[in-house]
């Protein structure tokens, strides 16, 4: 199959289209506007729904409306504007509606700036909406993965009737790489037993999160958490390299996953036994695998373009079995392989460095 040199943003847009996205609604914000621009060209031509909404509050709610009818619906946005969507996300979870949200991180807090950053890990993974809930989060590190994980996001959202976030960043959004646009590889999920289509020949349906009966409310929330347990069993994804003999494992998500690999390659050249671990699903988080790795390897570095967000999940997974250190900065120039390697050397100690 031929490859196309394309940006991460446009790759996501095309992949969503290929996944059968019926409706896309959004409001422009850098660095993800190219997604909306791309879809504004092809969605209306294909007879699919497209609205440049008046706000992100409106766009997420339009997505909920479309999703409630059983349509595959998506929006995309960034940082401060995703803050505006938190209420909608909580409703979508409570209403058990499948939707896909593409989050292309910029630097925050507040308006922040368009420097690339990974400062919205917490926003995506732990969320800012109300209530007990989880959202599936997939973090691509290459343009090809933007394609593959966007497909997966549509599938998982339908499978679990839950929102899915694809967590990208300004670097990945703008960078161009060769990508292959494979056919949507997942089966279509039947939603005819819950979608709102008008009550023709059947009992009317009410999609709502409100439950006045306390016992029933608790059952509903338990049902959500049964789904999350199922996701933790079936959907965890990660990428690891050279962990078998590693004296230190570098952990990173998204685009930073590439730089820890570069640091590993460089370190291995000098005989330093470095491994890498990249969670691809940030929820469900690969707790089990990290815990296994910590049985053997006793030093971990978490490299993130933020001041320490994913490290908390790594610490929970490792549960005190190994030393965990964070390196990062808020935004801008990505942590370089030499910087990461230097930190690894420090953590391993001078004796180690002298021995290799």
């Amino acid at each position, binding site marked *: 199959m031929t490859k196309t040199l394309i940006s991460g943003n446009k790759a996501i847009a095309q992949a969503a289209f290929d996944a059968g996205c019926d409706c896309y609604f959004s409001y422009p914000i850098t660095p993800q506007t190219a997604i909306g621009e791309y879809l504004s060209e092809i969605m209306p031509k294909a007879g699919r729904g497209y609205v440049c909404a008046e706000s992100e509050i409106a766009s997420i709610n339009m997505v909920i409306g479309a999703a409630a009818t059983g349509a595959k619906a998506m929006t995309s946005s960034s940082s401060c504007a995703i803050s505006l969507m938190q209420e909608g996300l909580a409703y979508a979870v409570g209403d058990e509606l499948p939707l896909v949200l593409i989050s292309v991180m910029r630097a925050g807090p507040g308006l922040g700036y368009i420097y690339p950053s990974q400062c919205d890990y917490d926003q995506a993974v732990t969320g800012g909406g109300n209530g007990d809930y989880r959202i599936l989060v997939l973090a691509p590190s290459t343009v090809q993965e933007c394609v593959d994980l966007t497909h997966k996001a549509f599938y998982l959202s339908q499978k679990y009737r839950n929102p899915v976030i694809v967590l990208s960043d300004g670097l990945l959004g703008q*960078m161009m*790489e060769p990508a292959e646009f494979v056919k949507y590889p997942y089966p279509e999920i039947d939603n005819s037993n819950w979608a709102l289509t008008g009550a023709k020949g059947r009992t009317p349906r009410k999609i709502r999160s409100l439950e006045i009966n306390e016992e029933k409310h608790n059952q509903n929330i338990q049902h959500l958490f049964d789904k999350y347990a199922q996701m933790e069993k079936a959907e965890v994804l990660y990428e690891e390299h050279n962990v078998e003999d590693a004296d230190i494992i570098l952990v990173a998500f998204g685009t930073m996953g590439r730089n820890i690999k570069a640091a590993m390659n460089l370190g291995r050249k000098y005989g330093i036994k470095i491994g890498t671990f990249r969670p691809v699903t940030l929820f469900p988080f690969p707790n089990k695998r990290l815990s296994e790795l910590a049985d053997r390897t006793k030093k971990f570095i978490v490299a993130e373009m933020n001041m320490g967000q994913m490290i908390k999940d790594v610490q929970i997974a490792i549960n005190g079995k190994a030393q965990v250190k964070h390196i990062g900065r808020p935004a801008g120039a*990505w942590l370089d392989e030499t910087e990461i390697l230097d930190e690894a050397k420090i953590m391993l100690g001078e004796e180690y460095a002298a021995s290799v």
Partner: protein
Amino acid sequence: MEQSIIIAGFGGQGVLSAGIILANSFMLNDKQVTWYPCYGAEMRGGAVNCEIVVSDTEVTSVHKKETDILIALNDLSFNKFLSKVKSGGIVIANATLIEKKYPREDVKYIFENISDTARELGSIKAANMVSLGILSNICNFTDIKSIKQAIDMVLPQKIRELNYKVLDAGIKLSESCRKE
């Protein structure tokens, strides 16, 4: 084997499109490649740059501290990015706009009248192609055939002929530094 290239200049010099054409040519040669434009304050004042990393296995890190090759199309870029060039790296500089100077001794300089050459052939806007012509003589990951093919993929038909011509002129300019 991995190589990184920075192309820098100001808006209108075709910095980004030269990078995209080059990246496409790498892709046509079955290489792994990443192209990205630079952000932030660097975008202000009309300064534009992009970075291309090419590898025959996998492009890992991005936003690199150092680069193997710098194509500087104006003085500002020359001064700004010279320090990023690796020891032993190459600087292709636009002598039309940059006064010949050699502040570092550990890099190789190729000064050519890039803008003048493009102007003489029909459009100063095609300066970017002169620089790619020069680059094709020194970079092992690409060749003239795939750059021309990439031009077909990226540029509109009506300006392709001019760009081929300017590209050829760039190759001639720097024949003396041709790769082995």
